[in-house]
């Protein structure tokens, strides 16, 4: 059996060589890491449902907060704020014993009451109780995915104060917070996992890809985001590039359910008309993978059974079953540099099939071109979350076989609310002086154990 490199981290080989030449082998304390990002969250509360989920938001959350449990690089559940846990009554009732001696950044101790309140805020439908130094979660039915769910950043334990700065137990505490603009974090000396190596992290928000890359080139940023279509060029230019496995789904999502047989035929026609392969080659510069499934193949193992090739004869045949052809508006994010081109190209493909699509940046549209950050490396959670985001019927984990997962995904796709297009990796360009950063499998990054090597003050 040949070794299978499951590492989701891909570092450009050119710079891997440069790293190999670096002599440092032990971590160094001190320095501030500068991060730039496109996202511009207005709240740092992990449970704030008004904030869109993004890889950046997940990353920031885990710099400041901890979850009850975490998953390691092998998806094994590990203790975090909870030191032990026990499930009973057929995985319906879970009890988590909290770690002693942990304090929030405001100096108050972590208690079961605070942890329970935090989980209730994040999950209003859960029944969360306190039992001495334990938190008890009761679900309506068996929930085999609960541990993976609790490891999600949105379930991080936060103590909500009167101001806009919730207090956490993570490696960094908030020094300055200018919503949607700037976040300054400092190392938490008394962090229960040990003080981080960096003295601080400064985050610039709402920066375009171009501005971020310029900041990296000028030495003003150590960690910046890279658009998927730019990743090959960035790597070829000799920069250090970190890319995840494909964890972002780009898809067309209809804003309403199928309302008639004609509607169903037209949606099928549109799905068959999109030339994913050539769009990937030209507009995405070879990034990502064409997709006709919600879950990428590395996550499910069966995505290849959903054909991604365009089939224009079938698309036309489907369209010819319908007498009246409406003009559908396709909404896209005007700030996404590649979205307009994609929407226009999809409209062209649709026209070849006899359909009429009108790209628009307006919010009100018949369907939207969206990017969905898959929530978790757990396929059931990722599928359920994508279904919830796109208005599909809820997907309930059975904790069962891969065939059950396949059936659940097939059922979700059969609603025709979504036309998957591509699975994209998340890419970052990194200053070579920044060491020991982590790119998690969910596309988020961590600087909790990062340090700045010599050569940089």
């Amino acid at each position, binding site marked *: *059996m040949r070794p299978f490199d*499951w590492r989701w981290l891909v570092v450009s080989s050119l710079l891997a060589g440069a790293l190999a030449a670096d002599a440092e082998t*032990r971590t160094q304390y001190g320095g501030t890491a500068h991060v730039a990002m496109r996202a511009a969250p207005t709240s740092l509360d992990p449970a704030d449902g008004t904030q869109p989920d993004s890889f950046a938001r997940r990353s920031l959350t885990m710099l400041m907060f901890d979850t009850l449990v975490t998953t390691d690089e*092998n998806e094994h559940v590990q203790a975090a704020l909870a030191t032990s846990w026990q499930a009973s009554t057929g995985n319906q009732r879970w009890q988590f014993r909290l770690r002693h001696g942990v304090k929030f950044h405001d100096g108050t101790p972590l208690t079961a009451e605070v942890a329970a309140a935090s989980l209730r805020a994040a999950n209003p439908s859960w029944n969360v109780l306190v039992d001495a130094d334990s938190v008890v979660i009761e679900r309506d039915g068996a929930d085999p995915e609960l541990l993976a769910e609790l490891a999600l950043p949105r379930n991080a334990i936060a103590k909500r104060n009167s101001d806009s700065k919730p207090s956490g137990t993570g490696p960094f505490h908030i020094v300055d917070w200018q919503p949607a603009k700037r976040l300054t974090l400092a190392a938490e000396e008394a962090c229960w996992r040990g003080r981080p190596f960096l003295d601080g992290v400064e985050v610039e928000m709402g920066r375009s890809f171009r501005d971020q890359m310029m900041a990296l080139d000028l030495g003003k940023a150590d960690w910046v985001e890279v658009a998927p279509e730019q990743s090959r060029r960035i790597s070829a230019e000799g920069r250090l590039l970190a890319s995840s496995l494909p964890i972002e789904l780009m898809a067309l999502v209809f804003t309403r359910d199928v309302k008639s047989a004609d509607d169903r035929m037209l949606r099928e026609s549109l799905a068959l008309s999109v030339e994913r392969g050539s769009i990937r080659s030209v507009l995405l510069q070879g990034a990502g993978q064409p997709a006709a499934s919600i879950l990428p*193949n590395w996550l*499910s193992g069966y995505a290849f059974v959903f054909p991604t090739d365009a089939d224009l004869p079938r698309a036309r045949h489907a369209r010819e079953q319908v007498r009246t052809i409406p003009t559908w508006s396709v909404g896209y994010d005007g700030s996404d540099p590649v979205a307009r081109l994609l929407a226009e190209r999809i409209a062209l493909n649709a026209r070849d099939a006899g359909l009429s699509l009108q790209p628009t940046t307006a919010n009100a549209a018949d369907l939207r071109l969206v990017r969905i950050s898959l929530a978790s490396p757990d396929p059931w959670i990722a599928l359920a979350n994508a279904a919830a985001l796109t208005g599909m019927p809820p997907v309930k984990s059975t*904790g069962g*076989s891969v065939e059950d997962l396949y059936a659940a995904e097939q059922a979700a796709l059969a609603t025709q609310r979504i036309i998957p297009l591509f699975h994209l990796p998340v890419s970052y360009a990194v200053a070579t002086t920044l060491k020991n950063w982590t790119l998690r499998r969910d596309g988020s990054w961590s600087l909790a154990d990062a340090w700045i090597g010599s050569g940089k003050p």
Partner: protein
Amino acid sequence: MRGAVYNLGISNVIPKSVTRVSRSAPCLRFALQLSFVMLGLAIAARAVDWNAPEQQLARKIVAVTGPGAVAFSVENRSSLGRRDNEVIQNGLRGALEGLGIRFVKADQGAATVAISLSENPASYVWVAQIRQGAGEVAVVMVSAPRGEGSAAMHDSVPLSLRKTPLWAQDDPILDVVVLEENTVPARIAVLDPEKVSLYRMQGGKWQQEQTAGIVHARPWPRDMRGRLMPARDHLLDVYLPGLICHSTTGTPLTLNCRESDDPWPLVSGTLNGGTLSVFPSAGLGNGASTVIPQLSAFFASTRNFFTGALTPGVGRFTTVSKFYSAALLPRDKYTLWLFAATDGQVHMVDGVTDQPARLGWGSDLASVKTACGAGWQVLATSAGEPGDSVRAYEFPDRDPVPVSAAIEFSGAITAFWTEARGDTAIVVVRDRQTGDYEAFRLALACSQ
């Protein structure tokens, strides 16, 4: 789908085999010769039995097609190697034949069965796409657990530096000390952030004797370090950031720990008239001991380095730059100390001068006494991909001369200490793929 386990590639059979055994027993193979013997058994034991998923998938396929003639193909989309691919393909054919399937060419079958060997993070996923006539494609699938996998033997070229696996575990290993040995280690102590564990070799396996917990109030630094030192009047001393523990002499083993910023000894050995008689078994031909003045250094209790304060000092130097590790090289009339400073330089301190140099070395140094060459060699780490490496150097003057090939490890070196006996070093590596910590004894075979 829970309990996902990635089955990562295995870069080195020997440490991995240790890891496997240590988890299940826990036990270890302690000697290289024994490792080679066990290697064959380990590989044989790893042979994955694909029979169950083969039978399962065959039944699902036949439930769709019924017995009869089918066109059959297999495509490998997974990390399975060619040999496993062939084994599975043959197994599937056999299972299908057993259920009444006959294999024919694509244009002769009532159905075509296209099997894809795929995978996800939790398991292998074998998918059969079945087309019968012009009908819809039926999809059936099974998951197959990941086996341990075999791996090619590395390090086939003899090296001057030899590593012998001692111990492996999930938790960080800070240090390992060999307490008893004949020709091979017979009893070891393993230090991790929360405990000291004693193991004895019995029947070819390491059996845990005792474990003593380490009580500490303050959180440990992230890059945790610690040192085990054999003691004369009791079993062990344990040096941890801001904490020092003394073990009891007899059984049961307990640790008396106190918060302390007392310095950590930089040389091992037993006290001998105000000096340390270091490394008495280090292979000196005349049987004499090398006498080296005692030297200790203060460790920063919330960091991963020594503060630079020395006691009693090296000549006129009681303070040097902050450093991660130190190595010594005895000379005729003095001892040259090498400090791997936090600024990336190596400071060579002879008591009169402090000469910094950028040698391109890593942060961890150790020195060993051998019976050849200059008699003392410095072992220096170096960062690399996919893992760190160690190389031996001599210092004819102040410039290092490499005297061995580099020996590579499967991940980052997290601890590197000269053993009390002085002729070997303990190196701890975090395997890049499994995340396990693996401790090795590193010896320099000078005849090479």
